[in-house]
Structure formats: C-alpha cells, structure tokens
C-alpha cells in the first residue's frame, strides 16, 4: 500500500505545458510612420529679414509637427503597454 501511494503521488505530479497563444505585435498608426521633414534653408545671398523670419517660422512649424509625432509615439507605447500587460 505504501508503494501504491508513492506511485500514485509520483504519477500525479503536474505537467507544465506552454500555452500555445501568441499576441500579435500591435500595429502603429500610419501617421507615426511618416518621417519628419528636413528643415528649410534660406535661399539667396541678399535676403530680407522678413524672408528669413518666414523660413524660421516654417522650421518652427516643422519642429512642432515632429514633436507632436514623438509625443504620439510615447502615448502609443504607454497605452499599448498597458493593454498588453492585461494579457497574462
């Protein structure tokens, strides 16, 4: 009876199996995949200060557009991380 109990206990030791489910990597919004534009250069030798200012403003605009994309990446990452942490 002792041996029987021992054999039953040994046989009933749980098996570990990996669960065959893989979550797919989340898609990134198309707008985040677009590259940031290059900054604009001032063309010409004799340039009025107002023309130069316009180029500077254009470049500030490009910076803020690009910065918005970086913020978007951070938000996307944080939210996707939160979502996929629930899958455990």
């Amino acid at each position: 009876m002792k041996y029987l109990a021992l054999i039953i206990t040994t046989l009933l030791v749980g098996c570990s199996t990996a669960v065959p489910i893989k979550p797919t990597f989340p898609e990134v919004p198309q707008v985040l995949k677009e590259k940031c534009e290059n900054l604009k250069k001032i063309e010409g030798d004799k340039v009025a200060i107002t023309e130069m200012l316009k180029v500077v403003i254009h470049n500030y605009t490009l910076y803020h557009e690009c910065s918005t994309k970086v913020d978007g990446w951070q938000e996307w990452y944080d939210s996707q991380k939160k979502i996929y942490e629930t899958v455990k």
Partner: protein
Amino acid sequence: MSQIIWILSFIPDWFWTLVLIFGILGTLASWVLKFIPFISTYRLPIQVASIIALVVGVYFQGVIANEAKWQDKVAELQQKVAEAEVKSKETNIVVQEKIVTKTKVIKEKGKDIVNYIDREVVKKEEIIKYIEQCPVPKEIIDLHNQAAELNKAAEGKK
C-alpha cells in the same frame, strides 16, 4: 511520455473512468470478498490487475483534469488577446486622430503667422526702412543653413 499521452488521448474519457471504477471494485473485492470461491482462487491476479487499473485510472483522471484546466486557460487567454487587439486598434485611432488634429492646428497657425508678415508687417514703415537698409548678411544666412542641416552632419559621421 507526452507522445504516449497524446495517443491515449484519443480514447474517450469515460473509458478511464470505467478503468478506475474497475480498479476500485476489484481491489475492494479481492480484500473483502475472499469467501467467494472464484475470487479466493484468483485473488492474486485480481489484486494485481485491479491495482494496475486503479493506478492507470487515477493517472488518467489526473491527465483529464489537467487537460481541462489547460484548455480553460487557453480559452481565457485567447479571449484576453482578442480583447487586447480590439483595444489596441481603438487606441491607435485615438492617437492617430490626436496627431492629425494637432498637426493641422500647427500648420494653420504657422501659415497665419507667415500671412500676417506678408499682410501687415511688411507694410510698416520702420520695417520697410529696415529691409531696404539692412539685408541679412550672407554669413548669418550660411550659419542658419548649416544649423538647419545638423542632422546631415550627424548622418555623415555615422
């Protein structure tokens, strides 16, 4: 071992329940019902067969329970993954809309400022005088353009 279990998994669950019941009854009978002639004659083979049936029956009850537990886990995880994928797509829409709206506002504001320069600033007398008398020196323009291409300098050094 897992291959053997896999092959045996084709046998229906009720079969292993029957084996277990046979094992229990056989074991009890060989100990308790010794006074019956058939059992007393074949007591040892019945005991051996019953104990084997008992062990196998208990083992496969464990296998069945374990399998059911894992199947539940798989189903639960599949559900969670499906929910996460839906949430992920919803989040993407929110992020995309936010970026598109912000970018639109930034572009419009930039254009507004440039338009204001063309419409108002260039008409101011002191500005007209300044533009006429003080064109931006070439050196300043070159430095600005160099700064605008700092990323290319960094790429060249890779």
